[in-house]
């Protein structure tokens, strides 16, 4: 009897084939979601002068966009559960395009808040969640690799958009650029067109099918995913039909009773306070040290390059048979490494020190980003991932928005940048240690539950076989006589 491995999905994910085209689509979608708000900052100075507003008022555009993107998570989750990934991504792309095109005709700053911030942000939210969700439906064994590759979209598209935006700005001014950016963002619709819903009618493959031992071990590890045996396997089967219809209509709040999900949520809230602030303050910190503007900008390029390189590598490493079963520890390591990196930053002196810091920080940031959603998928499983990520993003909204301003307040109060790095380092280190401890406890609990359920299964199957044997014997005896 095959192990209760892929029963949680109900089908075997292809783990390849069209899946790689879907990964490419997700690459583009995720890339635009993360890179687009950051790349718009190039236009802010000109828009600020045009509308005669203060710097903080123009920075609000970026914040509103980010807030809408995170707040739109649950809405996006509901739509994905109902309609699948493809229509939602296409609608998202169209939304951002309309938002940008309308913004290019804007007459005051409120207009920009609404068009770029709210409409654009929602559109990006409709891009982010479905892309992550569909990877979970297409991949099981090679999922960390697929996730790592898809998340590489963010630095790659940011590196492409930054000089492109500068060029568009010089050639067309901010209004023309917004119009053209709106059309470029429509590429998300192309990405959405690639996201064909996975063919669920392929019959299940058994373990005997796998040729290589390694892939078998991987499948085994993937099968013994924390998802399958985590909390209430039996009750899950029973309430599955009830749960699915509930999920389809509303947000599945039963996730809040899921142990792994809670660990992830609490750790992430602490983590995100210190996640983005160091990136935002890298260039100002460099300038504060007396480094000229171009070298400071070059630091960011080094950071992006290290980030770009490490994401697929992390995916590859996470896929190996040693790491995959215990991928949560890998994630905890990544978080702690981030924290250590920030705590060591004030020790860096001069330009070479900052370059070294930028490289290490790039590696740390990329590692964390590549694993961020993979571990959530690992914890809650593909069917509930969409809802989970929606809930996570809306709760993360707070720390993400509060982080950089709080760091800015620290700089203003102390007059020295090193306190930001200490603060961020502490946040991430605390979060990393929390993850290590809680996941050790969680893995132990899961192993216990798996042991129990396996014992019950073998007992059940033994009983069933015994019963059948007795029946066969009885019928034989009857026919004999």
């Amino acid at each position, binding site marked *: *009897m*095959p192990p209760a491995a892929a029963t949680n999905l109900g089908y075997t994910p292809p783990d390849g084939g069209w899946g790689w085209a879907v990964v490419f689509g997700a690459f583009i979608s995720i890339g635009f979601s993360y890179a687009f708000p950051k790349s718009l900052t190039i236009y802010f100075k000109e828009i600020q002068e045009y509308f005669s507003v203060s710097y903080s008022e123009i920075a609000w555009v970026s914040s509103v966009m980010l807030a809408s993107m995170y707040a739109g998570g649950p809405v996006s989750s509901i739509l994905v559960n109902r309609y699948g990934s493809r229509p939602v991504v296409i609608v998202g792309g169209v939304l951002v395009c309309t938002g940008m095109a309308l913004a*290019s005709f804007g007459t005051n700053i409120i207009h920009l808040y609404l068009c770029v911030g709210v409409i654009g942000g929602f559109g990006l939210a409709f891009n982010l969640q479905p892309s992550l969700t569909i990877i979970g439906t297409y991949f099981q064994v090679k999922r960390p690799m697929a996730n790592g590759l898809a998340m590489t979209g963010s630095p790659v598209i940011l590196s492409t958009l930054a000089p492109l935006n500068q060029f568009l700005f*010089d*050639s*067309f*001014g901010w*209004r*023309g*650029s917004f*119009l*053209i950016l*709106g*059309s*470029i963002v*429509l*590429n998300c*619709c*192309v990405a959405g*067109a*690639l996201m*064909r819903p996975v*063919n669920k*009618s*392929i*019959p*299940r*493959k*058994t373990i*005997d*099918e796998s040729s290589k031992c390694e892939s078998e071990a991987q499948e085994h590890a993937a099968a013994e995913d924390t998802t399958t045996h985590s909390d209430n396997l039996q009750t899950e089967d029973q309430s599955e039909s009830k749960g699915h219809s509930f999920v389809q209509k509303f947000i599945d709040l039963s996730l809040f009773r899921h142990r792994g999900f809670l660990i992830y949520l609490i750790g992430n809230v602490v983590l995100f306070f210190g996640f983005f602030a160091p990136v935002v303050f890298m260039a100002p910190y460099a300038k504060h040290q007396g480094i000229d503007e171009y070298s400071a900008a070059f630091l960011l390029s080094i950071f992006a390059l290290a980030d770009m390189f490490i994401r697929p590598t992390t995916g590859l490493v996470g896929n190996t048979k040693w790491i995959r079963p215990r991928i949560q520890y890998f994630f905890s390591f990544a978080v702690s490494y981030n924290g250590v990196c920030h705590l060591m930053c004030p020790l860096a002196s001069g330009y070479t020190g900052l370059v070294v810091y930028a490289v290490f920080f790039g590696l740390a940031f990329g590692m964390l980003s590549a694993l961020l959603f993979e571990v959530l998928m690992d914890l809650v499983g593909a069917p509930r991932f969409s809802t989970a990520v929606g809930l996570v993003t809306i709760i993360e909204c707070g720390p993400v928005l509060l982080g950089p301003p709080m760091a800015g307040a620290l700089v203003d109060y102390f007059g020295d940048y090193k306190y930001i790095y200490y603060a961020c380092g502490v946040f991430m280190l605390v979060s990393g240690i929390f993850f290590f401890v809680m996941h050790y406890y969680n893995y132990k609990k899961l192993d216990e539950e798996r042991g129990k359920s396996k014992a019950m299964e073998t007992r059940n199957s033994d009983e069933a076989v015994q019963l059948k*044997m007795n029946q*066969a*014997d009885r019928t*034989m005896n009857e*026919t004999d006589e």
Partner: protein
Amino acid sequence: MHRNAVMLAVVLLGNLMLPFISAQNEPKINASDQTILTADTSSKQVILQCNLTTAHTRHKESFWMKNGQDIPNTRTEQKDTIYRINKPRADDSGEYMCVYTFDTAPNANTTIEVKAKPDITGHKRSENKNEGENATLYCKSVGYPHPTWTWRKMDGKSPMELDNSTGRIFITNRDNYTELNILNLDINTDPGIYECNATNAIGNNAQTTILRVRSHLAPLWPFLGVLAEIIILVVIIVVYEKRKRPDDIIDDDEPVGQMKTNSTNNHKDKNIRQRNTK
């Protein structure tokens, strides 16, 4: 009468002597001549010197001023005072004054002029504006004496006088700053290279700025182009998928794997006894 004549003579003589006496009471300062800074002298040090030759009372102290402002750290009590300019540049030029202060008399001073060709320090290399907007080109200079400004537009390699027949061009000149304002930019006539020229008694200097005017419709073409590319890509993907669909169904017919079914084949022949002996 004799006495009155003598007194008148003394008074007259005294009056005649008065200018000489007061001239002798006025402090005299010997100062260096005016200097002209050129490219040749830029490496040599320029020395400005003031000597207090005659003074009625002892002076208190002396210091230097440039263009009406005190130069810090130049106060001494010496009679001879020297001000050095190392590696003189255009912004070192100006009106220098050595000032002597007295306890019981007003200050005495002499002016030394240091002149140079104007150096243009601030200007925009390029200005991009939309049709119908207003453009502002400016130039800042350093140097004494203050230059007179002229604006010209380059026609090929040679500068031409500005054509203000449409009355949209306004020029504002101040001592070391000039501004060229063009209202309601016209995409046909206004784009080009503009030159600001600063001229004074010593020489002149010029800098150019490129003015580009963007049309309102300019962004529309790339927008439509990208839109077309996206529609083509989406159509290709959808068509590919529609064609692939039948292939997918054919794939399903292939036996992917033997399902372990509860096959009752073995039970068909009931003559064969099946016993699991354990």
